[in-house]
């Protein structure tokens, strides 16, 4: 079976087929198959241990799958890792920031790795966007969890990625910073960037997505377009699935 989108000749931004990841005898992911169209925004929900982060780490080429096929823009991920990383922005559980460098130095370092043109100017821009311009000369060690998360967002924005993986990006953010992140994600959606968001916040995840996917025990238990989907239905489905510990079922077409 081809992983190209059946409706169009445009290759999906991400196409995953029969993805399996095991840690010893434990199956973290079981035969995941999923396609994400270019410019599509997909939110993944699921209880702790459902395999969401493992899935994202494999798509980011940090972790190698045990088996299965992953295509990024029609290219096998293994063959195009550098090109994939060049246009990928990731916000994960950890900040990827060096404690003993200042906020500006951290961003300048990553800007150089990403070949960002006019790096110093771009660093000042993103620091302003996340409200940390005043703290640019301060060491990250002195930052609160929320400020580190803001800086982490700035790091992910630096190279203006066309593909974004966000793993619980709202963690630790105050209301102002959360609202800033939501605005940024809305802007990215309007710019047709491809977004894969993992969150436990059903309301936020629904508002920011074109499609919802629910993971359970390493499998896609449910997926549906957000068109016509309201929060009450989503909540009902989610809690029914999680409470039932269901195996894959009711896998709606997007």
């Amino acid at each position, binding site marked *: 079976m081809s992983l190209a989108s059946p409706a169009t000749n445009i290759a999906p931004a991400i196409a995953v087929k029969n993805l399996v990841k095991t840690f010893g005898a434990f199956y973290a992911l079981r035969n995941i198959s999923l396609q994400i169209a270019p410019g599509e925004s997909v939110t993944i929900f699921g209880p702790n241990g459902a395999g969401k982060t493992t899935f994202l*780490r494999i798509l*980011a*080429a*940090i*972790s*190698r799958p045990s088996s299965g096929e992953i295509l990024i823009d029609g290219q096998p991920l293994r063959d195009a890792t*550098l*090109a994939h*990383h*060049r246009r*990928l922005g*990731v916000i*994960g*559980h*950890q*900040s*990827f*920031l*060096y*404690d*003993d*460098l200042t906020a500006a*130095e951290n961003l300048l*370092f*990553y800007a*150089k*790795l*990403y*070949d960002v043109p006019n790096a110093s100017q771009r660093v000042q821009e993103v620091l302003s966007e996340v409200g940390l311009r005043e703290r640019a000369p301060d*060491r990250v060690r002195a930052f609160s969890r929320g400020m580190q998360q803001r800086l982490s967002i700035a*790091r992910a924005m630096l190279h203006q990625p066309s593909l974004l993986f966000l793993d619980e990006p709202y963690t630790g953010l105050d209301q102002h910073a959360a609202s800033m992140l939501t605005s940024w994600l809305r802007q990215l959606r309007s710019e047709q960037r491809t977004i894969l968001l993992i969150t436990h916040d059903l309301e936020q995840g629904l508002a920011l997505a074109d499609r919802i996917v629910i993971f359970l025990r390493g499998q896609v238990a449910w997926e549906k377009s957000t068109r016509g989907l309201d929060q009450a239905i989503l909540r009902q489905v989610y809690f029914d699935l999680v409470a039932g510990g269901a195996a894959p079922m009711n896998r709606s077409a997007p």
Partner: protein
Amino acid sequence: MSHWRKLVALVWKDLLAEFRTKEMLSSMLMFALIVVVVFNFTFEPGSRSTREAGPGILWVAFTFAGVLGLYRSMVHEVERGCLQGLILAPVEYGLIFLGKAVGNAIFIFLIELPTFLLFSIFFNFDFWQGLDKLAVIFFLGTIGFAAVGTLLSAISVNTRTREIMLPILLFPIEVPVILSAVNATASALAGKGWSEITGWLKILAGFDLIFLLVCFVTFEYVLEE
């Protein structure tokens, strides 16, 4: 050119962070100096046994302090997931290895000079005698040590017993480097000419070349889960 800029950025990041705190350098230097001082209690300065054991003592100080530096340098990378940040950047894994290895080698070089100065005072060696030869020996020995050490520190940092795992993995592989460096250092300190140490230098250079290449190529498999 882009590769060069990225390599410089990788090294610059390590140097900047370390020169700001000096946590790693100070602990490495203290460790090396303590080794020299403690051995000084045992050996009589200028005696024959000191002449024979001196080069070994010097390299014990360098390698033990080096292991401490290698370990801490890699721990800094995993503390906030920074190593993942590097993996996610559009940078070849080999370049990440080179950046870390060059940074580690610079830190070890920096502790070698004061350690050797103290060693030459305590053990009654002429600091200036054979310094040109010693500079080459220290350079080649340190490159080989840092190259293998960087690769193995990346392997051991994810193990539960990472503090002890690095020296266990490192020292058996470093035997050719330490052996060559100790013998070459002994010849240089004894005032022998280049012809006496060329053989050891060739082994050191060969080891450096082979392991730099092997580590450059295999670093990718160390970083992947």
